[in-house]
């Protein structure tokens, strides 16, 4: 983390804030307390404010995510093709709700408004792999593979 902070110029403008947070998260997976406090000194924004700003956006996490990030698409096309059932099934099987990570640190569930595969809905994405026209049975298989 120190290395990351040292690379930043001594004074950073506020317009750079979101970019820096994105870069940090890309590298370390989530935004942690110490980082926000250190960044606060450089950028001249109170740590509470940085937390408030970051929490507005879906991209930022404040806890480490699981090894597998499961994106269930909740876009309108997927909804019409019963993605809500998939979400319910996933929650029933894993006990995870949107944004939660399993206790063993393996699976994180994140609902996304639209993955863009409307023609092949419902779509599920695990890390970088897409699954299309997913049925309940497919989802069961996906979950078993992850476990």
């Amino acid at each position, binding site marked *: 983390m120190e290395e990351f902070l040292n690379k930043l110029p001594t004074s950073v403008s506020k317009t750079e804030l979101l970019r820096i947070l994105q870069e940090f998260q890309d590298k370390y997976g989530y935004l942690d307390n110490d980082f926000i406090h250190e960044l606060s000194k450089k950028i001249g924004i*109170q*740590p*509470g404010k*940085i*937390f*408030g700003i970051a*929490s507005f956006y879906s991209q930022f996490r404040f806890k480490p995510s699981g090894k597998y990030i499961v994106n269930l698409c909740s876009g309108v096309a997927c909804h019409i093709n019963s993605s809500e059932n998939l979400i319910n099934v996933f929650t029933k099987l894993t006990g995870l709700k949107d944004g939660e990570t399993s206790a063993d640190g393996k699976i994180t569930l994140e609902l996304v408004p639209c993955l863009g595969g409307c023609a092949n809905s419902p779509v599920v994405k695990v890390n970088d792999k897409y699954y299309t026209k997913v049925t309940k049975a497919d989802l069961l298989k996906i979950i078993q593979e992850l476990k």
Partner: protein
Amino acid sequence: MEFTITINNKKIKVSNNEKILDVLRRIGINIPTLCNVPGLSPTGACRLCVVELNDTNELVPSCSTPVRVGMNISTHSNKVINARRVIVNLLLSNHPDNCLYCDKRSYCELHQIAENLNITDRSFPGEPKKSKSDRSSPGILREMSKCILCGRCVRICEEMLGISAIDIVNRGKNIEIETIFKKGLFYSNCIHCGLCIKYCPTGAIIEKSYVQNLIDKLNNSEKEKVIVISNSTIADISNFYGIKKFTDCRNNIVGALKDIGFDKVFTLSPGNEIFIYENAVKILNHIKDKSNNTLIVTDCPAAKKYVKSELSELSPLLTSIPSPQQILAKFFKKSDDSNVFMTVVTPCVANKYEAVQSSNTTKGVPDIDIVISSNELLKLFNTYGIEFPYSRKQIPDNPSNSDTSAGPLFETKGGISETLIRELLYQNQKSYPKKLFEIKNDKNFIEFSFVLNNQQFKIASIHGISSLKEKVEDILSGKYLFVELRLCENACIDGCVQLRDDDPDKFKKIKKLILDYDETNNSDTASKNPFIKAYKNNNLKQK
């Protein structure tokens, strides 16, 4: 540029760039708002201040819409009132309805507005929000279920103070006002000034109450029960009950507290006087040593915390003398296993925070056992059915029985400077003018000057964070002999937890009470109190 617009069929003169709401307030039309804070930028969040533009039948928020030539406005048309009713109904649909147990009660602005709009029923479905609270701060209690997300506290904390201990977090249905990582105020950079309490329209941010703890102790503790009342509290209560003379009210309060069961009752004045005396000694030494360092004299725990954490370059200049109530705590509790149970009544939330600081505790127990606010004192009186003027008057106990008027004056805006200069001149030449010469008075920044040993000195009296930030350079440059610093704009007499009152000019009346007392009193500087003389001699002996 000036022009006229039509408001409710009347022609009204307005000037360019004025916001509609400001015009309406100016001409006495009452518009409900929940998010507006005079002096801070409008956010247009609550939408209750909407008015109708008659030419387009459009509803616009009056707080953020500037007047335009040819505007024709209705402020209470059917459409407007209906919109306001729906908005308030929406807010109420999941608001907890345990108003009976809410500390805000009739002072709740949401309650007031709902009443004015004749809302008597929960008209839209919704489950009341589940209780979720932050009790980490010793002085401030946040009950999030009552929060209506108007954002006033956030803007106060950000725009007025630059602290941002709390901010709006998340969005949509998960939106809430929270501290960093939702850890609670005590673990954030909150300075516990309590301004958010003052501006919160509902019971979402309130002071943490200790009255019931106090009553339990009163009945169950074997210890000697001592209570210290700040002069701001006395003045506030005397204003509240319309008692003309400061000392009358003081003696009333002393009598009442004795009847309730306190063994000894003091005013905060002896603490103030020692604080003044000790700082005067320091400053005279500065002058003697020709030191160029400005002393920042403050008794305000919030201001101290702010300087230490946010303006660390000023931190070495802070006076080392503890605050008056802590001075008295050390004085009353001489030994570790003291048999004294000490209560302090103040107008300030930060004092509750100060009391639990490790430097102010002995073996983990706070030296001041309980701090209550002026507001809580009134509750205590109400619990015991005490009405003022109280039949029994009593003089406070020694050393408070020989108070000078410097004690109360100290708690007003500019009071540190005035009392300290008096004391400096008194210690140096035994004479001083009653009224000081102000060079400058910019609302929250007053500059005084005085002559001591043929040398001219400047003093700055700074109130509020924004004026402090402006003066950092000047303070570091050594331009001032000393600087008075307090966080509340009108000093302690207008503290955040004084009695609740809708009167915006209350602090002026309280100040007048104290100034009247000072004017008619000859014993008006710390060293004139025989107690201080004794204290001085005692100090000398020890040295």
